[in-house]
Protein backbone atom coordinates (compact mmCIF):
# COMPACT_ATOMS: atom_id res chain seq x y z
CA UNK A 1 0.00 0.00 0.00
CA UNK A 2 2.65 2.44 1.02
CA UNK A 3 4.33 2.62 -2.36
CA UNK A 4 5.63 6.15 -2.02
CA UNK A 5 8.11 5.11 0.63
CA UNK A 6 10.34 3.17 -1.72
CA UNK A 7 9.33 4.74 -4.99
CA UNK A 8 12.23 6.12 -7.00
CA UNK A 9 12.15 9.87 -6.49
CA UNK A 10 11.72 11.75 -9.72
CA UNK A 11 13.08 14.84 -7.98
CA UNK A 12 16.26 15.13 -5.98
CA UNK A 13 14.44 15.74 -2.73
CA UNK A 14 11.81 14.03 -0.63
CA UNK A 15 10.46 17.52 -0.14
CA UNK A 16 10.98 20.01 -2.93
CA UNK A 17 9.43 23.46 -2.57
CA UNK A 18 9.91 25.78 -5.54
CA UNK A 19 8.96 29.45 -5.67
CA UNK A 20 6.23 29.08 -3.09
CA UNK A 21 4.25 32.25 -2.71
CA UNK A 22 1.32 32.38 -0.35
CA UNK A 23 -1.04 35.32 -0.08
CA UNK A 24 -3.75 35.80 2.53
CA UNK A 25 -6.77 38.05 2.08
CA UNK A 26 -6.41 41.50 3.62
CA UNK A 27 -2.62 41.60 3.68
CA UNK A 28 -0.35 43.95 1.77
CA UNK A 29 2.47 41.51 1.23
CA UNK A 30 2.62 37.76 0.64
CA UNK A 31 3.09 35.73 3.82
CA UNK A 32 5.49 33.50 1.92
CA UNK A 33 7.38 35.15 -0.90
CA UNK A 34 9.22 32.86 -3.29
CA UNK A 35 10.37 30.16 -0.90
CA UNK A 36 12.68 27.47 -2.31
CA UNK A 37 13.55 24.58 -0.04
CA UNK A 38 14.56 20.95 -0.43
CA UNK A 39 15.02 18.06 1.95
CA UNK A 40 16.77 14.95 0.62
CA UNK A 41 15.99 11.43 1.87
CA UNK A 42 17.65 10.85 5.23
CA UNK A 43 18.64 14.48 5.52
CA UNK A 44 17.96 16.75 8.51
CA UNK A 45 17.15 20.30 7.50
CA UNK A 46 16.35 23.07 9.95
CA UNK A 47 14.15 26.01 9.15
CA UNK A 48 14.98 28.83 11.53
CA UNK A 49 13.15 32.08 12.04
CA UNK A 50 11.32 34.25 14.52
CA UNK A 51 7.57 34.41 15.08
CA UNK A 52 5.76 35.43 11.93
CA UNK A 53 8.66 34.65 9.61
CA UNK A 54 6.61 31.99 7.82
CA UNK A 55 8.57 28.94 8.94
CA UNK A 56 5.54 27.06 10.25
CA UNK A 57 3.48 27.86 7.14
CA UNK A 58 6.31 26.64 4.94
CA UNK A 59 6.52 23.32 6.76
CA UNK A 60 2.75 22.88 6.78
CA UNK A 61 2.59 23.45 3.05
CA UNK A 62 4.08 19.97 2.69
CA UNK A 63 0.78 18.65 4.06
CA UNK A 64 -1.26 21.27 2.22
CA UNK A 65 -2.40 22.50 5.63
CA UNK A 66 -2.95 26.11 4.66
CA UNK A 67 -4.93 28.87 6.36
CA UNK A 68 -8.40 29.60 4.97
CA UNK A 69 -8.40 31.94 1.99
CA UNK A 70 -4.76 31.29 1.16
CA UNK A 71 -3.79 31.74 -2.48
CA UNK A 72 -0.65 29.92 -3.56
CA UNK A 73 1.78 30.04 -6.45
CA UNK A 74 4.70 27.72 -7.01
CA UNK A 75 4.98 24.01 -6.30
CA UNK A 76 5.38 21.84 -3.24
CA UNK A 77 6.44 18.34 -4.25
CA UNK A 78 6.67 15.38 -1.93
CA UNK A 79 8.42 12.46 -3.62
CA UNK A 80 7.74 14.19 -6.91
CA UNK A 81 3.98 14.68 -6.48
CA UNK A 82 2.67 18.21 -6.29
CA UNK A 83 0.82 18.58 -3.02
CA UNK A 84 -0.93 21.87 -3.74
CA UNK A 85 -2.86 20.48 -6.71
CA UNK A 86 -3.52 17.03 -5.23
CA UNK A 87 -7.14 15.83 -4.94
CA UNK A 88 -8.75 14.82 -1.66
CA UNK A 89 -7.81 11.13 -1.95
CA UNK A 90 -4.18 11.81 -2.68
CA UNK A 91 -4.05 14.35 0.14
CA UNK A 92 -5.47 11.82 2.56
CA UNK A 93 -2.86 9.26 1.52
CA UNK A 94 -0.19 11.91 1.91
CA UNK A 95 -1.30 12.98 5.35
CA UNK A 96 -1.74 9.50 6.73
CA UNK A 97 1.34 7.94 5.21
CA UNK A 98 4.00 9.83 3.32
CA UNK A 99 4.27 12.89 5.52
CA UNK A 100 3.90 13.05 9.28
CA UNK A 101 4.08 15.88 11.71
CA UNK A 102 5.21 16.32 15.31
CA UNK A 103 3.79 19.41 16.96
CA UNK A 104 5.20 21.67 19.62
CA UNK A 105 2.84 20.89 22.45
CA UNK A 106 2.03 17.19 22.73
CA UNK A 107 -0.69 17.85 25.30
CA UNK A 108 -2.56 20.00 22.81
CA UNK A 109 -2.31 17.38 20.07
CA UNK A 110 -3.74 14.43 22.00
CA UNK A 111 -7.26 13.75 23.16
CA UNK A 112 -6.91 13.55 26.96
CA UNK A 113 -9.95 11.26 27.23
CA UNK A 114 -8.61 8.50 25.02
CA UNK A 115 -5.88 6.01 25.73
CA UNK A 116 -2.50 6.44 24.09
CA UNK A 117 -2.93 3.08 22.38
CA UNK A 118 -6.07 4.29 20.59
CA UNK A 119 -4.29 7.43 19.54
CA UNK A 120 -1.37 5.49 18.10
CA UNK A 121 -3.43 3.03 16.10
CA UNK A 122 -6.45 5.04 14.96
CA UNK A 123 -4.69 6.44 11.89
CA UNK A 124 -3.57 3.16 10.37
CA UNK A 125 -6.76 1.43 11.36
CA UNK A 126 -8.86 4.12 9.68
CA UNK A 127 -6.99 4.16 6.41
CA UNK A 128 -5.23 0.87 5.91
CA UNK A 129 -7.76 -1.65 6.98
CA UNK A 130 -4.92 -2.95 9.12
CA UNK A 131 -6.31 -5.22 11.78
CA UNK A 132 -6.28 -3.98 15.34
CA UNK A 133 -3.79 -6.65 16.36
CA UNK A 134 -1.32 -5.73 13.65
CA UNK A 135 -1.67 -2.04 14.38
CA UNK A 136 -1.06 -2.66 18.07
CA UNK A 137 1.98 -4.78 17.30
CA UNK A 138 3.42 -1.98 15.22
CA UNK A 139 2.63 0.58 17.91
CA UNK A 140 4.45 -1.56 20.46
CA UNK A 141 7.44 -1.89 18.18
CA UNK A 142 7.62 1.87 17.64
CA UNK A 143 7.16 2.62 21.33
CA UNK A 144 10.18 0.37 21.85
CA UNK A 145 12.07 2.39 19.25
CA UNK A 146 11.34 5.60 21.16
CA UNK A 147 12.30 4.02 24.47
CA UNK A 148 8.89 3.29 25.96
CA UNK A 149 7.26 -0.03 26.74
CA UNK A 150 3.77 -1.21 25.86
CA UNK A 151 2.30 -0.35 29.27
CA UNK A 152 1.98 3.16 27.85
CA UNK A 153 -0.68 1.88 25.43
CA UNK A 154 -3.17 1.52 28.27
CA UNK A 155 -2.42 4.91 29.79
CA UNK A 156 -4.12 8.24 29.30
CA UNK A 157 -2.09 11.30 28.21
CA UNK A 158 -2.49 12.84 31.66
CA UNK A 159 -0.66 9.91 33.23
CA UNK A 160 2.68 10.42 31.50
CA UNK A 161 5.22 13.27 31.49
CA UNK A 162 5.65 15.81 28.71
CA UNK A 163 8.86 14.22 27.49
CA UNK A 164 7.24 10.79 27.33
CA UNK A 165 4.23 12.22 25.55
CA UNK A 166 6.43 13.85 22.93
CA UNK A 167 8.01 10.44 22.36
CA UNK A 168 4.53 9.01 21.94
CA UNK A 169 3.88 11.74 19.36
CA UNK A 170 7.03 10.74 17.48
CA UNK A 171 6.04 7.08 17.58
CA UNK A 172 2.59 8.07 16.28
CA UNK A 173 4.17 10.07 13.48
CA UNK A 174 6.16 6.99 12.42
CA UNK A 175 3.12 4.67 12.37
CA UNK A 176 2.46 5.42 8.70
CA UNK A 177 6.11 4.89 7.72
CA UNK A 178 6.54 8.46 6.53
CA UNK A 179 9.14 9.47 3.98
CA UNK A 180 9.13 12.96 5.46
CA UNK A 181 8.81 13.98 9.09
CA UNK A 182 7.90 17.58 9.86
CA UNK A 183 8.86 18.58 13.39
CA UNK A 184 7.52 22.00 14.35
CA UNK A 185 9.35 23.18 17.48
CA UNK A 186 9.06 19.65 18.89
CA UNK A 187 11.29 20.41 21.88
CA UNK A 188 10.32 23.97 22.73
CA UNK A 189 7.89 22.93 25.44
CA UNK A 190 10.38 20.50 26.96
CA UNK A 191 13.18 20.85 29.49
CA UNK A 192 16.72 21.03 28.12
CA UNK A 193 17.68 17.55 29.25
CA UNK A 194 14.46 16.14 27.80
CA UNK A 195 15.13 18.10 24.62
CA UNK A 196 18.47 16.31 24.27
CA UNK A 197 16.71 12.99 24.65
CA UNK A 198 14.07 13.77 22.01
CA UNK A 199 16.69 15.07 19.59
CA UNK A 200 18.85 11.98 20.12
CA UNK A 201 15.79 9.88 19.43
CA UNK A 202 14.94 11.74 16.20
CA UNK A 203 18.52 11.32 15.00
CA UNK A 204 18.46 7.58 15.76
CA UNK A 205 15.13 7.09 13.99
CA UNK A 206 16.27 9.05 10.99
CA UNK A 207 19.22 6.69 10.61
CA UNK A 208 17.08 3.60 11.07
CA UNK A 209 14.19 4.56 8.81
CA UNK A 210 16.05 6.95 6.44
CA UNK A 211 13.32 9.52 7.03
CA UNK A 212 13.82 13.04 5.72
CA UNK A 213 13.44 15.45 8.61
CA UNK A 214 12.39 19.09 8.42
CA UNK A 215 12.99 20.64 11.81
CA UNK A 216 11.29 23.98 12.41
CA UNK A 217 12.77 25.96 15.28
CA UNK A 218 13.56 29.42 16.56
CA UNK A 219 16.65 28.10 18.34
CA UNK A 220 19.72 28.72 16.20
CA UNK A 221 22.08 26.80 18.42
CA UNK A 222 19.83 23.77 18.35
CA UNK A 223 19.59 24.01 14.56
CA UNK A 224 23.36 24.26 14.30
CA UNK A 225 23.84 21.24 16.53
CA UNK A 226 21.47 18.84 14.79
CA UNK A 227 21.14 19.70 11.09
CA UNK A 228 22.92 18.95 7.89
CA UNK A 229 21.62 22.12 6.31
CA UNK A 230 19.85 25.22 7.64
CA UNK A 231 17.47 27.74 6.10
CA UNK A 232 17.02 31.10 7.81
CA UNK A 233 13.70 32.81 7.14
CA UNK A 234 12.75 36.42 7.58
CA UNK A 235 9.40 38.04 6.70
CA UNK A 236 8.33 35.19 4.42
CA UNK A 237 11.58 34.95 2.48
CA UNK A 238 14.63 32.75 2.75
CA UNK A 239 17.39 35.07 3.90
CA UNK A 240 20.18 32.54 3.84
CA UNK A 241 20.73 28.81 3.56
CA UNK A 242 23.64 26.46 3.55
CA UNK A 243 25.46 23.68 5.38
CA UNK A 244 24.88 24.18 9.13
CA UNK A 245 28.49 24.56 10.19
CA UNK A 246 29.40 26.93 7.37
CA UNK A 247 26.31 29.07 7.91
CA UNK A 248 26.77 29.51 11.64
CA UNK A 249 30.51 30.03 11.56
CA UNK A 250 30.44 32.37 8.59
CA UNK A 251 26.98 33.92 8.27
CA UNK A 252 26.61 35.91 5.07
CA UNK A 253 23.30 37.59 5.83
CA UNK A 254 23.22 40.44 8.36
CA UNK A 255 20.05 38.99 9.89
CA UNK A 256 21.69 35.64 10.61
CA UNK A 257 24.73 37.43 12.00
CA UNK A 258 22.53 39.66 14.19
CA UNK A 259 20.51 36.70 15.46
CA UNK A 260 23.68 34.87 16.43
CA UNK A 261 24.98 37.98 18.19
CA UNK A 262 21.78 38.54 20.15
CA UNK A 263 21.58 34.99 21.53
CA UNK A 264 22.57 34.83 25.19
CA UNK A 265 25.26 32.17 25.55
CA UNK A 266 27.03 30.31 28.28
CA UNK A 267 30.44 31.40 27.07
CA UNK A 268 29.52 35.06 26.95
CA UNK A 269 30.59 37.17 29.89
CA UNK A 270 28.62 40.18 31.14
CA UNK A 271 28.01 43.26 29.03
CA UNK A 272 25.04 44.05 26.85
CA UNK A 273 23.76 41.78 24.13
CA UNK A 274 23.71 43.26 20.67
CA UNK A 275 19.95 43.43 20.23
CA UNK A 276 18.36 43.95 16.82
CA UNK A 277 16.44 47.20 17.15
CA UNK A 278 12.92 47.48 15.77
CA UNK A 279 10.80 44.53 14.80
CA UNK A 280 9.98 42.49 11.70
CA UNK A 281 7.74 44.15 9.11
CA UNK A 282 4.02 43.49 9.60
CA UNK A 283 1.73 42.03 6.98
CA UNK A 284 0.05 45.39 6.38
CA UNK A 285 3.03 47.00 4.66
CA UNK A 286 4.21 46.05 1.20
CA UNK A 287 7.93 45.44 0.86
CA UNK A 288 9.70 47.16 -2.01
CA UNK A 289 13.21 46.07 -1.20
CA UNK A 290 14.97 43.84 1.28
CA UNK A 291 12.67 42.89 4.17
CA UNK A 292 15.45 43.38 6.70
CA UNK A 293 16.60 46.78 5.41
CA UNK A 294 14.86 48.83 8.12
CA UNK A 295 16.77 47.03 10.90
CA UNK A 296 19.99 46.35 9.03
CA UNK A 297 23.26 48.09 9.92
CA UNK A 298 24.56 47.57 6.36
CA UNK A 299 21.48 48.90 4.54
CA UNK A 300 21.95 51.41 1.71
CA UNK A 301 19.62 52.84 -0.93
CA UNK A 302 19.67 49.76 -3.10
CA UNK A 303 18.29 47.70 -0.19
CA UNK A 304 15.10 49.78 -0.13
CA UNK A 305 14.73 49.68 -3.90
CA UNK A 306 14.89 46.05 -4.90
CA UNK A 307 14.77 42.76 -3.03
CA UNK A 308 18.09 40.90 -3.07
CA UNK A 309 18.24 37.48 -4.70
CA UNK A 310 19.75 34.40 -3.14
CA UNK A 311 23.28 34.27 -4.51
CA UNK A 312 25.95 31.67 -3.83
CA UNK A 313 28.77 32.70 -1.53
CA UNK A 314 32.04 32.77 -3.50
CA UNK A 315 33.88 29.51 -2.98
CA UNK A 316 30.86 27.87 -1.31
CA UNK A 317 28.24 27.07 -3.94
CA UNK A 318 26.07 25.29 -1.35
CA UNK A 319 25.84 28.41 0.80
CA UNK A 320 23.51 31.15 -0.46
CA UNK A 321 22.55 34.50 1.01
CA UNK A 322 20.01 37.08 -0.11
CA UNK A 323 21.85 40.29 0.67
CA UNK A 324 23.10 43.13 -1.53
CA UNK A 325 26.05 43.61 0.80
CA UNK A 326 26.84 40.03 1.62
CA UNK A 327 30.52 40.52 0.84
CA UNK A 328 30.79 43.08 3.67
CA UNK A 329 30.33 40.21 6.11
CA UNK A 330 33.45 38.59 4.75
CA UNK A 331 35.26 39.75 7.88
CA UNK A 332 33.60 36.84 9.62
CA UNK A 333 34.68 34.50 6.83
CA UNK A 334 37.37 31.89 6.54
CA UNK A 335 40.59 33.31 7.89
Amino acid at each position, binding site marked *: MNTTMNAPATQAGTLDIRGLRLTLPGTARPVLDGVDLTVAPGETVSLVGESGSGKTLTSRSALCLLPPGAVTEGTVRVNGDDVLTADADRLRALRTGTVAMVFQDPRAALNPLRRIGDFLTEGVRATRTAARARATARATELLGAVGLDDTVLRKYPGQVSGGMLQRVMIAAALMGEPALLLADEPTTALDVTTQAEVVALLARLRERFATALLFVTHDLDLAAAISDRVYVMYAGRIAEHGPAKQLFEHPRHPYTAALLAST*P*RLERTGGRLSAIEGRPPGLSTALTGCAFAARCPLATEVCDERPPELRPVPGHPEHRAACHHSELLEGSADA
Partner: protein
Amino acid sequence: MPEPTDVKVLEVSGLRRSFGAVRAVDDVSFAVPEGGSLGIVGESGSGKTTAARIIVGLERADAGEIRVRGRSRTPRVRGRAQRLARAREVQMVFQDPYLSLDPRTSVGAVLRETLRLHFPHIDHGRRVRELLDQVGLGSRAAEALPRRLSGGQRQRVAIARALAVEPAVLVLDEAVAALDVSVQAQILNLLADIRERTPIGYLFITHDLGVVRCVTDDVIVMRRGRVVEAGATADVLGGPRHPYTRLLMDSVPRPGWDPERIAAARRAL
Protein backbone atom coordinates in the same frame (compact mmCIF):
# COMPACT_ATOMS: atom_id res chain seq x y z
CA MET B 1 17.65 52.47 56.93
CA PRO B 2 20.88 50.47 57.11
CA GLU B 3 23.69 51.57 54.83
CA PRO B 4 23.09 50.67 51.19
CA THR B 5 26.29 48.68 50.67
CA ASP B 6 25.35 45.47 52.46
CA VAL B 7 21.58 45.82 52.41
CA LYS B 8 19.85 42.65 51.38
CA VAL B 9 16.68 43.53 49.52
CA LEU B 10 15.58 39.93 49.78
CA GLU B 11 16.54 37.20 52.24
CA VAL B 12 14.97 33.78 52.10
CA SER B 13 15.77 31.16 54.71
CA GLY B 14 14.63 27.60 55.22
CA LEU B 15 11.70 27.90 52.83
CA ARG B 16 9.54 24.77 52.63
CA ARG B 17 6.36 23.89 50.83
CA SER B 18 4.80 20.48 50.22
CA PHE B 19 1.88 19.51 48.06
CA GLY B 20 0.73 16.20 49.47
CA ALA B 21 3.74 13.90 49.46
CA VAL B 22 5.69 16.10 47.04
CA ARG B 23 8.23 18.42 48.59
CA ALA B 24 8.01 21.20 46.02
CA VAL B 25 10.34 23.50 47.94
CA ASP B 26 12.62 21.84 50.46
CA ASP B 27 14.80 24.02 52.71
CA VAL B 28 15.66 26.74 50.22
CA SER B 29 17.73 29.73 51.35
CA PHE B 30 19.30 32.61 49.43
CA ALA B 31 19.74 36.37 49.49
CA VAL B 32 19.68 39.16 46.92
CA PRO B 33 21.70 42.30 47.72
CA GLU B 34 20.55 45.78 46.77
CA GLY B 35 21.03 46.22 43.04
CA GLY B 36 21.85 42.52 42.78
CA SER B 37 20.47 39.83 40.54
CA LEU B 38 20.03 36.21 41.48
CA GLY B 39 19.03 33.48 39.09
CA ILE B 40 17.13 30.34 40.00
CA VAL B 41 17.62 27.62 37.40
CA GLY B 42 16.08 24.20 37.22
CA GLU B 43 13.74 22.12 35.11
CA SER B 44 10.00 21.70 35.37
CA GLY B 45 9.15 20.38 38.79
CA SER B 46 12.33 21.69 40.40
CA GLY B 47 10.30 24.03 42.59
CA LYS B 48 11.69 27.27 41.19
CA THR B 49 8.30 28.71 40.28
CA THR B 50 6.73 27.63 43.59
CA ALA B 51 9.56 29.39 45.43
CA ALA B 52 8.94 32.54 43.39
CA ARG B 53 5.20 32.41 43.99
CA ILE B 54 5.74 32.11 47.75
CA ILE B 55 8.05 35.12 47.72
CA VAL B 56 5.52 37.21 45.81
CA GLY B 57 2.72 36.06 48.11
CA LEU B 58 0.73 33.98 45.64
CA GLU B 59 1.40 30.82 47.62
CA ARG B 60 1.91 30.12 51.32
CA ALA B 61 5.04 28.52 52.75
CA ASP B 62 4.84 25.64 55.24
CA ALA B 63 7.98 26.92 56.95
CA GLY B 64 10.78 29.40 56.49
CA GLU B 65 11.14 33.12 56.47
CA ILE B 66 11.24 35.79 53.80
CA ARG B 67 12.62 39.23 54.61
CA VAL B 68 12.43 42.20 52.26
CA ARG B 69 14.75 45.05 53.21
CA GLY B 70 15.10 43.36 56.58
CA ARG B 71 11.36 43.22 57.29
CA SER B 72 9.78 39.83 57.65
CA ARG B 73 6.89 38.97 55.36
CA THR B 74 5.65 36.28 57.71
CA PRO B 75 3.34 38.20 60.10
CA ARG B 76 -0.19 38.61 58.83
CA VAL B 77 -0.88 42.14 57.62
CA ARG B 78 -3.90 44.04 58.88
CA GLY B 79 -5.78 46.61 56.90
CA ARG B 80 -5.60 47.97 53.40
CA ALA B 81 -2.61 50.28 53.85
CA GLN B 82 -0.40 47.51 55.20
CA ARG B 83 -1.53 45.09 52.55
CA LEU B 84 -0.73 47.55 49.78
CA ALA B 85 2.62 48.32 51.36
CA ARG B 86 3.48 44.65 51.35
CA ALA B 87 2.35 44.26 47.75
CA ARG B 88 4.66 47.11 46.78
CA GLU B 89 7.73 45.35 48.17
CA VAL B 90 7.81 42.55 45.62
CA GLN B 91 6.48 42.71 42.08
CA MET B 92 6.37 40.01 39.45
CA VAL B 93 6.67 39.84 35.68
CA PHE B 94 5.14 36.71 34.21
CA GLN B 95 6.18 34.60 31.26
CA ASP B 96 3.38 35.27 28.84
CA PRO B 97 2.79 38.92 27.98
CA TYR B 98 -0.28 37.83 26.03
CA LEU B 99 -2.00 36.58 29.18
CA SER B 100 -0.82 39.07 31.79
CA LEU B 101 -2.49 42.15 30.31
CA ASP B 102 -6.23 42.82 30.11
CA PRO B 103 -7.03 42.99 26.39
CA ARG B 104 -9.59 45.76 26.93
CA THR B 105 -7.40 48.08 28.99
CA SER B 106 -5.06 50.52 27.29
CA VAL B 107 -1.42 50.70 28.34
CA GLY B 108 -1.89 54.08 30.01
CA ALA B 109 -4.96 52.85 31.89
CA VAL B 110 -3.09 49.76 33.14
CA LEU B 111 -0.40 51.97 34.65
CA ARG B 112 -2.86 54.57 35.99
CA GLU B 113 -4.89 51.87 37.70
CA THR B 114 -1.82 50.62 39.56
CA LEU B 115 -0.72 54.15 40.44
CA ARG B 116 -4.19 55.19 41.63
CA LEU B 117 -4.32 52.19 43.94
CA HIS B 118 -0.92 52.71 45.52
CA PHE B 119 -0.27 56.44 45.23
CA PRO B 120 -3.63 58.24 45.08
CA HIS B 121 -2.12 61.70 45.53
CA ILE B 122 0.51 62.01 42.82
CA ASP B 123 0.28 63.36 39.27
CA HIS B 124 -0.33 60.15 37.30
CA GLY B 125 0.05 61.66 33.85
CA ARG B 126 3.66 62.58 34.46
CA ARG B 127 4.50 59.29 36.15
CA VAL B 128 2.96 57.28 33.29
CA ARG B 129 5.14 59.17 30.81
CA GLU B 130 8.18 58.55 33.03
CA LEU B 131 7.46 54.84 33.27
CA LEU B 132 6.88 54.42 29.54
CA ASP B 133 10.08 56.28 28.89
CA GLN B 134 11.94 54.09 31.37
CA VAL B 135 10.95 50.91 29.50
CA GLY B 136 11.62 52.39 26.08
CA LEU B 137 8.03 52.94 24.95
CA GLY B 138 6.95 56.31 23.56
CA SER B 139 4.12 58.30 25.18
CA ARG B 140 1.99 57.37 22.18
CA ALA B 141 1.97 53.79 23.44
CA ALA B 142 -0.21 54.93 26.35
CA GLU B 143 -3.26 54.96 24.10
CA ALA B 144 -2.65 51.51 22.64
CA LEU B 145 -4.55 48.37 23.54
CA PRO B 146 -2.42 45.27 24.20
CA ARG B 147 -3.44 43.61 20.92
CA ARG B 148 -1.83 46.46 18.98
CA LEU B 149 1.48 45.67 20.66
CA SER B 150 4.09 43.04 19.88
CA GLY B 151 5.18 40.48 22.47
CA GLY B 152 8.27 42.50 23.34
CA GLN B 153 6.28 45.71 23.76
CA ARG B 154 3.76 43.95 25.99
CA GLN B 155 6.55 42.65 28.17
CA ARG B 156 7.83 46.23 28.44
CA VAL B 157 4.36 47.27 29.64
CA ALA B 158 4.38 44.46 32.21
CA ILE B 159 7.77 45.65 33.44
CA ALA B 160 6.55 49.27 33.59
CA ARG B 161 3.54 48.18 35.63
CA ALA B 162 5.79 46.30 38.05
CA LEU B 163 8.14 49.27 38.36
CA ALA B 164 5.24 51.68 38.90
CA VAL B 165 5.06 50.87 42.63
CA GLU B 166 8.84 51.16 43.10
CA PRO B 167 9.34 47.61 44.38
CA ALA B 168 12.41 46.48 46.30
CA VAL B 169 12.43 43.18 44.43
CA LEU B 170 11.35 42.29 40.92
CA VAL B 171 10.59 38.61 40.36
CA LEU B 172 10.90 37.64 36.70
CA ASP B 173 9.40 34.22 36.08
CA GLU B 174 10.65 33.08 32.65
CA ALA B 175 9.97 36.68 31.63
CA VAL B 176 11.88 36.45 28.35
CA ALA B 177 11.22 32.80 27.51
CA ALA B 178 8.29 33.52 25.19
CA LEU B 179 10.11 36.21 23.20
CA ASP B 180 12.05 35.88 19.97
CA VAL B 181 15.81 36.13 20.43
CA SER B 182 16.16 39.56 18.85
CA VAL B 183 13.42 40.95 21.12
CA GLN B 184 14.64 38.96 24.10
CA ALA B 185 18.00 40.71 23.80
CA GLN B 186 16.23 44.11 23.86
CA ILE B 187 14.37 43.21 27.07
CA LEU B 188 17.46 41.74 28.75
CA ASN B 189 19.36 44.94 27.96
CA LEU B 190 16.47 47.01 29.28
CA LEU B 191 16.50 45.06 32.54
CA ALA B 192 20.26 45.60 32.84
CA ASP B 193 19.75 49.36 32.30
CA ILE B 194 17.06 49.55 34.97
CA ARG B 195 19.25 47.71 37.45
CA GLU B 196 22.08 50.18 36.85
CA ARG B 197 19.86 53.15 37.60
CA THR B 198 17.88 51.84 40.58
CA PRO B 199 18.63 49.86 43.75
CA ILE B 200 16.09 47.21 42.72
CA GLY B 201 17.01 43.55 43.15
CA TYR B 202 16.12 40.90 40.58
CA LEU B 203 15.07 37.34 41.16
CA PHE B 204 15.37 35.70 37.78
CA ILE B 205 13.54 32.39 37.40
CA THR B 206 14.63 30.68 34.20
CA HIS B 207 15.59 27.42 32.59
CA ASP B 208 17.91 29.17 30.13
CA LEU B 209 21.52 29.12 31.29
CA GLY B 210 22.54 31.61 28.59
CA VAL B 211 20.09 34.11 30.07
CA VAL B 212 21.40 33.40 33.57
CA ARG B 213 24.93 34.04 32.40
CA CYS B 214 23.86 37.37 30.91
CA VAL B 215 21.78 38.95 33.64
CA THR B 216 22.62 37.49 37.03
CA ASP B 217 25.45 37.93 39.55
CA ASP B 218 24.60 34.84 41.58
CA VAL B 219 22.74 31.67 40.82
CA ILE B 220 21.17 28.75 42.62
CA VAL B 221 20.46 25.46 40.87
CA MET B 222 17.34 23.65 42.05
CA ARG B 223 16.39 20.03 41.59
CA ARG B 224 13.36 18.32 43.09
CA GLY B 225 12.79 21.18 45.50
CA ARG B 226 16.32 21.37 46.82
CA VAL B 227 19.21 23.69 46.08
CA VAL B 228 21.95 21.46 44.65
CA GLU B 229 24.45 24.19 43.88
CA ALA B 230 24.78 27.89 44.68
CA GLY B 231 27.35 30.58 44.10
CA ALA B 232 28.51 33.41 41.88
CA THR B 233 27.17 32.87 38.35
CA ALA B 234 30.64 32.99 36.79
CA ASP B 235 31.94 30.36 39.24
CA VAL B 236 28.98 28.00 38.99
CA LEU B 237 28.80 28.11 35.20
CA GLY B 238 32.59 28.28 34.87
CA GLY B 239 33.20 25.19 37.03
CA PRO B 240 30.01 23.35 37.96
CA ARG B 241 30.50 21.01 40.91
CA HIS B 242 27.20 19.17 41.08
CA PRO B 243 26.60 16.53 38.37
CA TYR B 244 23.11 17.94 37.79
CA THR B 245 24.50 21.41 37.04
CA ARG B 246 26.96 19.78 34.66
CA LEU B 247 24.13 17.88 32.97
CA LEU B 248 22.13 21.10 32.55
CA MET B 249 25.11 22.80 30.98
CA ASP B 250 25.89 19.88 28.67
CA SER B 251 22.26 19.89 27.55
CA VAL B 252 22.56 23.33 25.99
CA PRO B 253 22.87 22.76 22.23
CA ARG B 254 26.17 23.82 20.69
CA PRO B 255 28.49 22.60 17.95
CA GLY B 256 29.77 19.13 18.77
CA TRP B 257 26.74 18.57 20.97
CA ASP B 258 26.08 14.92 21.69
CA PRO B 259 22.43 14.43 22.68
CA GLU B 260 22.93 10.67 22.94
CA ARG B 261 25.51 11.09 25.70
CA ILE B 262 23.35 13.63 27.54
CA ALA B 263 20.38 11.29 27.42
CA ALA B 264 22.56 8.55 28.92
CA ALA B 265 23.91 10.90 31.61
CA ARG B 266 20.37 11.97 32.45
CA ARG B 267 19.23 8.40 32.98
CA ALA B 268 22.31 7.68 35.10
CA LEU B 269 21.74 10.65 37.43
